């Protein structure tokens, strides 16, 4: 059981955290024909846009209400109205998703009221899907923005259904956390379909951010789940939520439609996937397809091959709560020690991280801890590369943003296959690092100073 502590510095050094509103925008990016809109000055949007583009290497639609100093003081009704009208006219989206920012929250803009007024003043927008979520920058983090936004989507866009209504037994709703990649969602879709189950992903960034060439040029998202499909999610037999952050959305779904849910806190690792596959087998009434029996064997073999390299590693990991829980758990199960763990925001899973302590802090904290506790492997998003270089330990990129390597959207860590990929990648990294930097030499056997400081050659 990890003790969760908070860094008490006044100055954040090398942030691990990103802001809540762009976490919200990220969720909207998983809807078809969507235009996410940040209610704030243009800079907030511009930074978010750059961040997404650097990670996905894709065109990303994102707009701003372009609050100026004056409009901030006077209140932003006109800007919200203008933004919605302009977007509606220019890019013809199927939905506009609005997140507030620190600026408009500090002023206290009541955007829900604005929307009611806009619908009144512009009857053609009466039925047009507009979803607003309050996401101030000065609270919470990226993951919270996603979490709140998905929950809100459920409340606003899913048609409410009587709990006793007939259900489609082979249809499920899938609520993925923001730590899953388009590649992860594609893998999950394949798994569901192999069980004869039709999944509806909310949101579905695999349709919009998976890097394909669209036939038509659009200025909204190029894929994702449609508003029409979301509306019918109440007909599904089950809701499957992935990551603790999705509990809230799953509960909202149940409250609105009576669809029962099952929460999988992680889908990385052997046992969690056994549970997942068993569950799918149970709800579909189908026995586990050969492919997964085989994949399970392959993962087991991969675990045997990699454990020599991963076991004993002193791991420093910085990630948002669900990703931290995911990766640290699977590596702990492979024999690594989670020696330094830093995250961005509070979450119930943090206590269950297999470490003595989890710090809500920044990459500066992670670097300090990793140094003091002599960690020999660092995992975080791309910003951690400087710390790893200074510590001279191998660095594995995980999470968002990964801007200095390609293919971030296609990486995979769910399912037997994803887990296998993850541990192979990690073990290879460790092997390469040893070959390049840590071959034993006569010098490494020498004693240094008074204490005995011997670096033995490593296994294999």
């Amino acid at each position, binding site marked *: 059981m990890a003790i969760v502590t908070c860094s008490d510095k006044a100055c954040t050094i*090398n942030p691990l955290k990103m802001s809540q509103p762009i976490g919200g925008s990220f969720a909207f990016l998983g809807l078809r024909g969507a235009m996410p809109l940040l209610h704030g*000055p243009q800079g*907030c949007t511009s930074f978010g*846009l750059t961040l997404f583009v650097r990670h996905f290497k894709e065109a990303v639609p994102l707009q701003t209400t*372009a609050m100026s100093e004056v409009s901030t003081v006077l209140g932003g009704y006109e800007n919200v109205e203008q*933004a919605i009208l302009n977007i509606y006219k*220019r890019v013809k989206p199927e939905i506009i998703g609005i997140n507030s920012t620190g600026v408009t929250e500090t002023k206290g803009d009541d955007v829900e009221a604005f929307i009611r007024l806009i619908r009144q003043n512009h009857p053609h927008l009466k039925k047009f899907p507009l979803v607003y979520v309050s996401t101030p920058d000065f609270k919470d983090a990226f993951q919270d923005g996603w979490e709140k936004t998905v929950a809100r989507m459920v409340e606003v866009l899913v048609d409410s259904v009587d709990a006793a209504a007939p259900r489609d037994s082979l249809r499920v709703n899938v609520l993925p956390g923001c730590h899953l990649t388009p590649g992860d969602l594609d893998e999950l879709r394949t798994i569901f379909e192999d069980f004869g189950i039709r999944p509806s992903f909310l949101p579905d960034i695999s349709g919009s951010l998976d890097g394909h060439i669209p036939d038509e*040029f659009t200025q909204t998202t190029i894929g994702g789940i449609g508003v029409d499909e979301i509306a019918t999610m109440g007909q599904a037999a089950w809701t499957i939520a992935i990551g603790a952050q999705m509990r809230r959305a799953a509960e909202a779904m149940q409250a609105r439609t009576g669809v029962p849910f099952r929460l999988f806190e992680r889908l990385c690792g052997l046992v969690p996937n056994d549970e997942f596959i068993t569950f799918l087998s149970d709800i579909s009434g189908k026995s586990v397809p050969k492919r997964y029996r085989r994949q399970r064997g392959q993962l087991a073999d991969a675990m045997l091959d990699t454990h020599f390299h991963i076991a004993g590693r002193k791991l420093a990991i910085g990630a948002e709560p669900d990703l931290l829980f995911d990766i640290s758990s699977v590596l702990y199960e492979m024999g690594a020690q989670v020696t330094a763990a830093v995250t961005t925001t509070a979450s119930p899973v943090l206590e269950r991280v297999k470490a003595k302590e989890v710090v809500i802090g920044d990459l500066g904290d992670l670097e300090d801890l990793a140094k003091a506790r002599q960690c020999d492997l660092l995992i975080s998003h791309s910003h951690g590369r400087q710390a790893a270089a200074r510590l001279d330990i191998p660095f594995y990129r995980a999470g968002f943003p990964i801007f200095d390597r390609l293919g971030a959207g296609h990486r995979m860590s769910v399912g037997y296959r994803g887990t296998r990929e993850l541990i192979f990648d990690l073990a290879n990294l460790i092997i390469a690092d040893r070959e390049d930097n840590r071959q034993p030499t006569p010098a490494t056997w020498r004693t240094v100073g008074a204490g005995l400081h011997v670096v033995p050659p490593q296994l294999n």
Partner: protein
Amino acid sequence: MSSLSATIQDVFNAAGCPKNANKSEAERKKGCTKQLQPGGAAGGCSFDGAKIALQPFTDVAHLVHGPIACEGNSWDNRGSASSGPDLWRTSFTTDMNEIDVVFGGEKRLYKAIKEIIERYDPPAIFVYQTCVPAMIGDDINAVCKIAAAKFGKPVIPVNSPGFVGSKNLGNKLAGEALLEYVIGTQEPDYITPYDINLIGEYNLSGELWQIKPLLDEIGIRILSCISGDGKYHEAACSHRARAAMMVCSRAMINVATRMKERYGIPFFEGSFYGIQDTSEALRKIARMLIERGAPRHLMECTEAVVAREEAKAWAAIERFRPRFAGKKVLLVTGGVKSWSVVAALQEAGLEIVGTSVKKSTSDDKQRIQQLMGHDAHMIEDLTPREMYKMLREAKADIMLSGGKSQFVALKAAVPWLDINQERCHAYMGYVGIVKLMEEIDKALYNPMWDQLRMPAPWDVTEVTRHAKALGPMEVPVAGGRPNSVGAEKAARAKRTHSCSTVDFSIINDRIPAHGSNAPDAMAHDTEASAACMRRTEENTPAQPTSALQAAE
């Protein structure tokens, strides 16, 4: 806040601003901030602009006062290079929380400054103001003043909350901070008649270093570069320079004009993009220095370097001319780059079908006209859809732009090259222009494009497919056949399914040699395990049976 609006007014009234000079008094008062269109705006905020302008100072700490949005979402996204200190790469922010918003963030800011000084002891700290603390009235000027007095270090407020305007305005606000708190506060160890300032050069991808060796050779010293690869002390001493060059950007024109007023440092606006522009800039620097008392032979040195470098560059570009003949370029970039790059491209024989002038001044536009003749395609504002259409219809063979519009080109299967801040190649000076041509050539002639532009075979209409199927059979290509020697070698080198040391070649060689055929004997002869051999014999699919075998 009131001092901030005064500063902004000042910036707008700057004598050197060509846009303002043509405006009436009333118009000038309004300032330049165009009312942004909600739902139709793009581009960074003033804070972004200020940070871009100052972050290339490498030895100072850059502390962003605000909630996580401003710094957490944006840090570590520009590639200025440093020849020494790297503190600029460390990100500092106060990450204000709800309590700070309610009770004010000044205390947290002061503590943050203290923490930075205790831990890093930089020569100075730049403190950036952002929207939320500006709204709640955090007085960063006062905090910086107190901290500076208390710690005996320059702590410089940069008043640039994002909502006051564009990135461009932010550049100028950064300049104001330098003028007010930095420039002229320290003295250099020595001065020479060859000292210059470069203003508005950020050393992206280390571009400055394509110019510096030339200046070194001529004997000209960069006393201070604001701000690429810059150090605090140099900027503080920059008032002792003899001349200054505004490098390819009006971003910090206020710094240049004010320094001329205050210290009598003459400046000119030049560019290091393109061969002729580079030569011109070098000559101008020399001329200015001579006018201010440097010996005349400085010009001879300059001419000698220019002649030599030009000859080399022209010779290097020559080889691209036949390959670029008839190739059309669409240039989507802002400001001066819209003409300084035009000149460079034309030098290599490329045809420019359009250049955006959205952020260009009337001066810039005139220059484009000079370069491209009267039918110059100056594009005021191109929507992505129009851009896409233009490219799809093959009105251009390549697009040069900033990173944000790259996908419009790429998804239209048109080559694209980054010429804005996120690019990873340096295009300055004589070396840089040749590099740019190389990159354009690489992009234009990449064989990939032919494949990409081909539709999938099943998308070709039924009829043509049918015709093809009935047509004469294609002869298989010779290279397509497997090389039998290579194939055997590969087969032999293959590991058996689970033994670590034994490969098929060992088995193949030893079994005939020993004549063994029972699994146990085979295992003995080949040093593979018996279970392993049994399976080889039975030819069953591999399966890890024990950890021992599977190991490694």
